[in-house]
C-alpha cells in the first residue's frame, strides 16, 4: 500500500480524498511524526486488545482500514516501516534480517513500483518496503492473581533449588539459565516462578522451538493455573487475537510481539540450527520488555555458554539429577570398523548386529540412531532381514507420527532414526545405540540428548547406551564426561536415591 505524507502525518492512499500529493511506500517517507494520544477518543477495545503488545501487518489485523486509521490519528496506533534502508542494504524490522541474499525485489501490485521484501520471515507474511508494521500505544491494566498455582505435586531437591532461583529471577528481572538433565522435570521447576509472576501482575511467555511441545505444554499449564487464561500460539493456531498473562508459543511467534513480556522462558535454546539462531535472538529481544526476566532452559547448553558458566559470567543453576533420583545411564563406546563401507555392500558390522539381535531375543525395544537419511534407508533394508517389523523414521517421513506411535505401542521392536528423535520422544524401558557416533552431526549436545532417552521412568531407570564408532571423537568424550559429571554433582549434592 501507499501513504500520502502530509507534513509527517500519514494518510493511506485509499482513504485520502481531499488531499493531493504523491503516494509513496512507507519506507520512502523520511520523517514520520508521532501523533499525540487523544484521551477523549472513544476507542475500539476490540482492536486495541487485538494489537496490544504486538507487531503486526495490516493483513493480520481483521479490522477495516478506516477504523485502524482513526486510531492512528488519535495516537493509539502507529505505522512503522517494515523494511529500512541501511548503509549495507536493508534491515527487516520484524525479524532483524540484514543478509543481502535474503532480500529480493519485485514489481509490487500494492505500491506499483519495484518493492524490496524480506525473504527470511516470509513464512509469516511478506514484509516489504510498502508494508507498515502496526504497533499499539495502549496498555491495559495487568491482571493480578492470588495464589494461582493449583498444582500440589512435590519437587525433587534439585527441582526445588532451581525453582527458587526462577522465583528470584522473576522478582528481580534477572537473566538465568537452568541446566537440567534430560528427565529432570523442567516444566514443574517453572511453576513457582510463573505463579509469582502472575501474583505480581506480570506477563509470562514460554517459548519453545517445536509446535508439538506447545501443544503438550498448554494443557499442563491450564491444569496448573486453572484461573488463568492460557493461550497457545503456533503456525495456524486460532488464538491469535487474544493476549493473556500466560502465553505458550513457538519461538517464531515471538516475532509478532513487541515489548510485551515481563518474564520470557526459552525452552531448548540449543535446539535451533545455527543459521536461524540470530532471528530468534532478535525475536526474543523484541518480544520481551526492556526490563524483564529472561530464563533459558536446556539440557545441553552449547560450548560458549558452558564456558561462561564455568567462568561465572552467566547466572546458572543446574539440576544434575532426574526427578526419580536414579543416576543417568552412562554411554559406552564400541569400535565397529568401517561401517559405511559395510552398509554400502549390504552388510552390517558384526558387533552392531549382535547388539540388535540381543535386543530382539530379549524383547527389549531400542532406538538405533544413524547420521543421515540416505544411510537410514539402507540400514533399514539390512535390518529387516533380522526382523521384518523393524522400521526407519526421519524428519520428512510422512508416516512419522504413525511410526512413533507404533513404537510406543510396542509394535516396532527397533526404530532406526536420524537425530530428529533425539529430543522429546520418551518411551519407558528402552536401549539406545548410535551407528557412526563419530559423524559430525553427533555433537556433544546431540549425544547427551540421545543418551537422555534411556532410563526415563522410575520403573526402569537404567538401560544400555552404546556408541558404535569408527574412531572416537572429542564430542563423544565430552558427552560421556558431561553425563558422568552430572551424576557426580548429583551425588555430592545428595540428590540421588540411596541403595
Amino acid at each position, binding site marked *: 500500500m501507499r501513504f500520502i505524507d502530509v507534513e509527517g502525518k500519514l494518510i493511506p492512499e485509499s482513504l485520502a480524498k481531499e488531499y493531493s500529493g504523491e503516494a509513496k511506500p512507507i519506507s520512502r517517507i523520511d520523517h514520520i511524526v508521532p501523533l499525540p494520544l487523544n484521551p477523549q477518543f472513544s476507542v475500539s477495545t476490540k482492536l486495541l486488545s487485538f494489537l496490544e503488545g504486538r507487531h503486526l501487518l495490516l493483513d493480520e489485523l481483521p479490522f477495516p482500514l478506516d477504523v485502524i486509521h482513526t486510531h492512528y490519528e488519535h495516537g493509539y496506533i502507529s505505522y512503522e516501516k517494515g523494511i529500512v534502508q541501511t548503509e549495507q542494504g536493508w534491515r527487516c524490522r520484524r525479524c532483524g534480517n540484514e543478509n543481502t541474499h*535474503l532480500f529480493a525485489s519485485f*514489481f509490487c*501490485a500494492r505500491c506499483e513500483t519495484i518493492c524490496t521484501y524480506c525473504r527470511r520471515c*516470509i*513464512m509469516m507474511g*511478506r514484509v516489504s518496503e510498502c508494508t507498515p508494521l502496526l504497533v499499539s500505544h495502549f496498555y491495559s491494566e495487568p491482571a493480578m492473581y492470588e495464589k494461582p498455582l493449583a498444582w500440589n505435586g512435590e519437587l525433587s531437591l534439585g527441582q526445588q533449588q532451581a525453582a527458587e532461583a526462577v522465583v528470584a529471577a522473576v522478582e528481580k528481572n534477572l537473566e538465568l539459565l537452568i541446566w537440567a538433565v534430560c528427565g529432570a522435570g523442567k516444566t514443574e521447576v517453572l511453576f513457582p516462578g510463573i505463579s509469582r509472576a502472575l501474583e505480581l501482575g506480570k506477563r509470562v511467555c514460554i517459548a519453545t522451538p517445536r509446535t508439538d511441545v506447545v501443544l503438550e505444554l498448554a494443557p499442563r499449564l491450564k491444569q496448573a493455573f486453572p484461573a488463568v487464561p492460557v493461550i497457545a500460539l503456533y503456525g495456524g493456531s486460532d488464538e491469535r487475537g487474544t493476549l493473556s498473562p500466560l502465553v505458550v508459543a513457538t519461538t517464531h511467534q515471538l516475532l509478532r510481539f513487541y515489548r510485551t513480556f515481563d518474564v520470557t522462558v526459552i525452552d531448548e535454546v540449543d535446539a535451533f540450527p545455527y543459521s536461524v539462531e540470530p532471528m530468534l535472538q532478535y525475536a526474543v529481544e523484541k518480544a520481551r520488555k526492556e526490563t524483564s526476566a529472561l530464563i533459558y532452559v536446556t539440557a545441553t547448553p552449547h560450548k560458549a555458554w558452558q564456558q561462561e558458566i564455568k567462568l561465572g559470567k552467566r547466572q546458572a543453576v543446574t539440576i544434575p539429577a532426574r526427578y526419580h533420583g536414579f543416576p543417568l545411564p552412562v554411554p559406552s563406546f564400541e569400535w565397529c570398523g568401517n561401517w559405511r563401507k559395510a552398509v554400502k555392500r549390504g552388510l552390517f558390522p558384526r558387533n552392531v548386529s549382535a547388539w540388535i539381535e540381543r535386543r530382539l531375543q530379549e524383547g527389549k525395544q531400542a532406538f538405533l540412531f544413524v547420521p543421515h537419511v540416505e544411510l537410514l534407508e539402507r540400514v533399514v533394508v539390512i535390518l529387516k532381514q533380522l526382523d521384518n517389523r523393524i522400521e526407519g523414521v526421519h524428519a520428512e517421513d510422512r508416516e512419522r507420527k504413525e511410526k512413533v506411535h507404533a513404537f510406543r505401542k510396542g509394535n516396532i521392536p527397533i526404530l532406526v532414526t536420524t537425530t530428529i528423535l533425539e529430543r522429546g520422544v520418551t518411551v519407558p524401558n528402552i536401549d539406545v545405540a548410535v551407528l557412526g557416533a563419530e559423524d559430525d552431526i553427533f555433537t556433544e549436545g546431540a549425544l547427551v540428548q540421545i543418551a537422555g532417552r534411556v532410563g526415563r521412568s522410575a520403573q526402569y531407570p537404567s538401560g544400555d547406551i552404546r556408541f558404535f564408532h569408527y574412531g572416537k571423537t572429542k564430542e563423544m568424550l565430552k558427552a560421556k564426561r558431561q553425563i558422568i559429571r552430572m551424576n557426580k554433582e548429583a551425588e555430592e549434592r545428595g540428590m540421588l536415591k540411596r541403595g
Partner: protein
Amino acid sequence: MRPYCLLCHHCYQPRVSWSDLLTLKKGDCLCATCRRSFSLIDSDICSDCGRPLDHLDHSYRDGDVCNDCLRWQNDNEWKGVLAKNRSVYVYDDVMKEVISRWKFRGDYAIIEAFRHDVCRVFSHHFSSESVLVPIPLSRERLYERGFNQAKALAELLSLPILDILERDHLEKQSKKSRHERLQMENVFRLRMSLPLEKPLVIIDDIYTTGATVRHAAKRLRQAGATDVSSFTLARA
C-alpha cells in the same frame, strides 16, 4: 563467495560444466539437493493435456490420451477449444510446497528457480511465434498477492505478452470440484481485440482439471482466435 540456495538458504558449491563456461550461462540458483527434488515431466505424456502417463493405469487412458481428455473431447461444448496443454513439473508434494511459498507466501524471488526449465520445455513444445496470454487475477486477489504468478511465468519467456483477459472476483478455484468448475459461468472477459493470425498460448501456474485454461481459451476463440493452447508450470 559461494552462493546461497534460493530455497533452502544453505551455502552450496555450484556445479559448473565446460559448456556453462563457454556459453557464459549462469550457474543454478538451487543447490543440487533442492534441484533434484523437482520432478520434471518428460517422456510419455498425454498428447492433449501433457500429463505424465507412465504411472497411469491402462484403464485410465486410451492410447496416448488420458481419460480426462477423452471426456473433454466427447463434450461438444468443449471439444477442440484447447489445442493442447504442456506443463513443466509434476505437481507433487515438493512442488506444492514450493509453489505455495512462491505464490501464497509471496516469495517472488523463487521464480528464478523455474526459469531454465520453463524456457527449455516451452521452446520444445511451442512455436517461437507464439503470443502469451497469462491467466489474470481479480483486482482484489492481485492486491492481496502483490503479483500475478502467471504473468511472472510469462515474463520468463521473452515473448510478446498480451495481458488481455480480466476476471471477476470469486472464491478460490482450489476449493471447487471439477464439476463445480465446469458449471461456473465464464469468469473471463476480453479487454481488447486479438491478433488472430498468431498462435496463442495461455500461461498459468497449475493445470488441475483444465477448466480454468479452457474457460480462457473459449473466450479467445469466441473473439476469433484459431490456435489456442496452454502452458503451465505444474500438472496436477
